[in-house]
């Protein structure tokens, strides 16, 4: 069972029911559960969308698109059925927030899905969990069954004339499926290859019907937003970045864990106060601020607020909330290699630049880190990444290219230190310091 952490600076909204037994529907109801959905049923779609827009809630999957606006893009009239699709294919390295939501508060996901369905006029929602989260799928399945038994799902929910069904669904191991159109393909039983856009899912999505796709954390936030009111929620965060989000602190901090903090919370503070600073009193070397696809930040770049705009200004991205902290013992070439190895493994292979680019980056970095690098490799790594950037079929290519470019740019000296057959300067130290020894 993942350890739950707590810190006084936290503002617990999405995580407010963590560790309180809310997987049980009665307990969930006791903790104000399903109130928001009930109110939404009473007040209707326009009210819901207005509240969502006021709240400033932006998509927690990484792109940060305003949720209310996304919902309002769905056409009111549609020949084909509309759908809500909850993206619980949490796979961005460094990210484990949805894991906790599904584990501790499955009903809030269900409730958020119902509200999203109401807002866009859908009759069916899907909650897609990554295949590795089997035990969480089982928790979700039970929660859905309980909600049906209470009349919160199915025909005439909450005693209204509205029908709404939810199906929980499992993936089977594919990072790429986190991309929304690939997610739809996967749910339709196909290879997780993204679709050509336009049309966008809001117009032509699942089974050809208009579809809203939201990250699990976004959806889990929705009932809270309605409960506390969009305005109140917006006040918590920073400008144009409403509310809180779950930050997954990992790596070389003293107290890793998932913390819920207001949007715009200072990164340096997050590492040194919330996370308890660098493990063993070592020096900070770098921070990956939002999951492995976000460009790395240097220690002098981290005095920034963690919201979409400020991190963007610092040359990186808020991403999925995975804050990975690296201390001075890390070999950045090895770290770059491990990052690229992941994208090479997860590339769907559809387009040339991503399929070939990730593979040749991996090949080059593997050889390079092993001490067989040549001088032109460094430029070639950057050349490869720069020629993938913006040219691939979907954002996975960018996700591989962006951090790679940053690693080479910001740690070029470290790359050069690997030249001429010299062994990795960090390897020796690392072996000695390993937690296992």
């Amino acid at each position, binding site marked *: 069972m993942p350890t739950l952490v707590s810190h006084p600076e936290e503002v617990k909204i999405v995580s407010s029911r963590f560790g309180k037994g809310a997987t049980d529907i009665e307990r969930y109801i006791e903790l104000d559960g399903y109130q928001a959905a009930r109110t939404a049923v009473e007040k209707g779609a326009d009210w819901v969308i207005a509240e969502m827009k006021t709240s400033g809630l932006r998509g927690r999957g990484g792109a940060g698109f305003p949720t209310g606006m996304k919902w309002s893009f769905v056409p009111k009239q549609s020949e084909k059925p509309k759908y809500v699709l909850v993206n619980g294919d949490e796979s961005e390295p460094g990210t484990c927030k949805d894991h906790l939501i599904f584990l501790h508060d499955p009903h809030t996901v269900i409730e958020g899905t119902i509200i999203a369905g109401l807002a866009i006029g859908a009759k069916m929602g899907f909650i897609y969990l990554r295949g590795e989260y089997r035990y969480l799928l089982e928790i979700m399945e039970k929660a859905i069954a309980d909600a049906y038994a209470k009349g919160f799902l199915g025909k005439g929910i909450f005693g209204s004339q509205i029908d709404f069904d939810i199906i929980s669904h499992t993936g089977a191991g594919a990072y790429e499926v986190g991309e929304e159109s690939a997610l739809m393909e996967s749910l339709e039983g196909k290879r*997780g290859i993204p679709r050509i856009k336009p049309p966008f899912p809001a117009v032509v999505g699942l089974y050809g019907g208009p579809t809203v796709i939201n990250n699990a954390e976004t959806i889990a936030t929705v009932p809270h937003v309605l409960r506390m009111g969009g305005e109140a929620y917006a006040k918590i965060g920073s400008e144009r970045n409403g509310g809180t989000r779950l930050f997954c602190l990992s790596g070389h901090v003293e107290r890793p864990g998932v913390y819920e903090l207001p949007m715009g919370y200072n990164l340096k503070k997050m590492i040194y106060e919330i996370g308890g600073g660098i493990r063993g009193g070592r020096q900070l070397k770098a921070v990956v601020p939002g999951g492995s696809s976000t460009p790395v930040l240097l220690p002098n770049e981290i005095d920034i607020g963690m919201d979409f705009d400020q991190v963007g200004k610092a040359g990186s991205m808020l991403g999925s909330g995975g804050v990975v902290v690296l201390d001075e013992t890390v070999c950045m070439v090895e770290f770059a290699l491990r990052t690229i190895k992941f994208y090479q493994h997860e*590339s*769907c*292979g*559809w387009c040339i630049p991503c399929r*070939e680019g990730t593979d040749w980056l991996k090949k080059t970095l593997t*050889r390079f880190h092993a001490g067989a690098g040549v001088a032109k490799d460094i430029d070639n790594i950057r*050349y490869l990444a720069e020629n993938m950037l913006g040219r691939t079929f979907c954002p996975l290519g960018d996700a591989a290219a962006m951090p790679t470019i940053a690693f080479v740019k910001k740690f070029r000296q470290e790359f050069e230190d690997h030249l001429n057959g010299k062994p990795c300067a960090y390897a020796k130290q690392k072996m000695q310091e390993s937690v296992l020894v």
Partner: protein
Amino acid sequence: MADVTLTVDGKKITAPAGTLLIDACRKAGIEIPAFCYYPGLSLQAACRMCVVRIEKIPKLQTACTTPVAEGMIVATDTDEIKQSRKAMLQLVLANHPLDCPVCDAGGECELQDMTFKYGAADSNFVDVKNHREEQQWSPVVYFDRPRCILCYRCVRVCGEGMDVWALGVQNRGVSSVIAPNGGDHLDCEECGMCIDICPVGALTSDTYRYKTRPWEMTHVSTICTHCGDGCKTTLGLRSSSDGMEIIRGDNRDKSGINGDFLCVKGRYAFDFANHKDRLTQPLLRNAEGKLVPASWEEALTFAGQRLHEIRDTRGGEQIGVIGSNRATNEESYLLQKFARSVLGTNNIDHHRTADYVSFAKALAGQEQRAASLREAETAPAILLIGGDPTEQHPMLAWNLRTNVRHNRARIYVVNHQEIKLRRQATSFLKISAENYSAFTRFLAGEENSIFGAEATALRETLATEPNLLVIFGSELRGAAIEALVRYGLSLPDTKFACLGDYVNSRGAADMGLYPDMLPGYVPVQQPGAFATEYGERFPAAPGLDLPSMLDVAARGNLAALYVVGSNPVHRYGVAAASLKNTFLIVQDMFLTETALLADVVLPIANLYEKAGTVTNTYGDLQLVRKAADRAGVRTDLELIVRLADTMGADVHALVPFGQGTRADMGQSRGAQSGEADRHAVWLAAQNLEPKLSPFDPSALLDEIQRLIPSYSFSRLELFAGNDQHVQATSKNNALVQISNLSQRPDGVLPSMDTLFTSGTMGRYSSKLTEVHDSRNKEILVAAN
């Protein structure tokens, strides 16, 4: 759709709204490179070669997925785009083996061309490429995985184009691989479309691989000799010790009536020409009754003298002539003219595979009601009664599928079997095999309890379809065709197509290879101009049809039989003994069951080895160009002329070859022969210069055009290689005057060929036989 105007590289271009940017640019002469984009197939946006910059859009966009828009400003040749294209090519080449010197695609490879053009000659990659061994997937398909650039064209053409879905994409990332449906092999129609469409040498064919380099071949486009669709096929030829050998068939330039398409037969079944049993010397039956080689002089003189003698002693009515489904129009025309005007007989027929006579009769007096094969790709609605296009008319099937895919055409299938095209059909009605005729009457309004609600619903739906294209198979004959056409004519703007089996089955019929029908379906009994054209030997009464000739022969009353490119002994199950009292001359490529019984066997050229025209079953007239050559064989046309000559007939009366002298007969090859250069032929057609040789088929085409009014077309277009649609009969056809035609036996014997058979000739195609056998083996294994 309305046109929109956009600016590409500073140039204003116009395209219909909805056009993809890549198509609009290409049409305007602005080249946009692409591997995965293929017109007519679904969009992939995978190769990223076609990226362009569109003003106000932050990222480069793929031209293959962007529809044109009014006022759009596009750049396709900036440094940024050049760099992007170059990088894509560098990435593809990173793992692509540079075995171009031995790769089949070398010299006609899109990757080579693009690398050359967009400059990806330098590479900084030093790591090892991933290698995999090549695999054989079927008797014709090989897959060389490292060469594959994953453009998915093969997957789409197989699935979307062919509706076979035998290829898939498996694994992911750099492990992604094209995979066949049988695990390690293909279970498919072996059309080879995947090979043709492959931009590189990843998919290669067993018939061509490692044989030659593309630039070492001569390429001649001509017409496939197999089914009644008459696809254009481009033959790759190489000179060999005994002529010009065919080494490849494809339709890579995508021209002609078949566009992209070619089936297993058009692509691979040309190898009968090189079969070891091919006859290259005339054979004469000697005193011991054995067939022994003879010289042309001996064989032709002997055959001609015997025919002369028989005609003069026993009369033309004791001579029979059987023509071919694969000879050119000119040859068929000449054969019947020879029979009627030289042999003095109307005993002429051919293996009939469809009732074209009834079709012509039903359409007599109508104009432009017979549909071209092309119309199957554009007609909004199609009624397909009988036939199995997937097996017997693969090009038609391709057009119908394409029509459904691109235009959402409605296809109504009525058949006694669950033919594959029902998968594209709006509705499928199963009727029993004996009810076709009743069904045509039912359509016309005759109530019949054997047809239920489904049939009634179909009839009602059809009544709402203007521009219906009615296509029917050989199950429908005689009165059924007449009833169907009558019904169709009651709807607005209906068109028709009658399905016959071989490349020139329709031509044979049009050219009058019938005992009772002259060219253009003019009844023998009302010969009109033919009476004078064909001279005094031309009998007034209809002759015997093919089965009757064989019956008469069995009774010992057929003195001579002249069989040209046909194998009636096998096809009609004739007992060997029944021809023992008949002097038999057979012209064929092989010692067929019929040739084995002959007194004289004359080895002939096949359709790939001669010039002329053929008419497909829809009436599309196309030019046949001489591609291959084989020492020792002659064309049917030449042999008929020479036979007539040895019989003492006036060759000038037979072939209007102008002012030449008899000395011209000496030349059967070279510039003065049937392969006279096209400029001369065209001049001749314009009456600007006389035909110089009696073996010039265009001399006969002159006469065909003069005597068959429905064969009206542009010769210029024809010689330019374009198909020309002709009608079976002209508006004022005499056929309407024949009252008792419905009592006439149709004499149709469908060939029952499949995708993997092609009459007697198919047996001599080693590749076709191999494919056929490998499939049967699989079926047997599966059954066990």
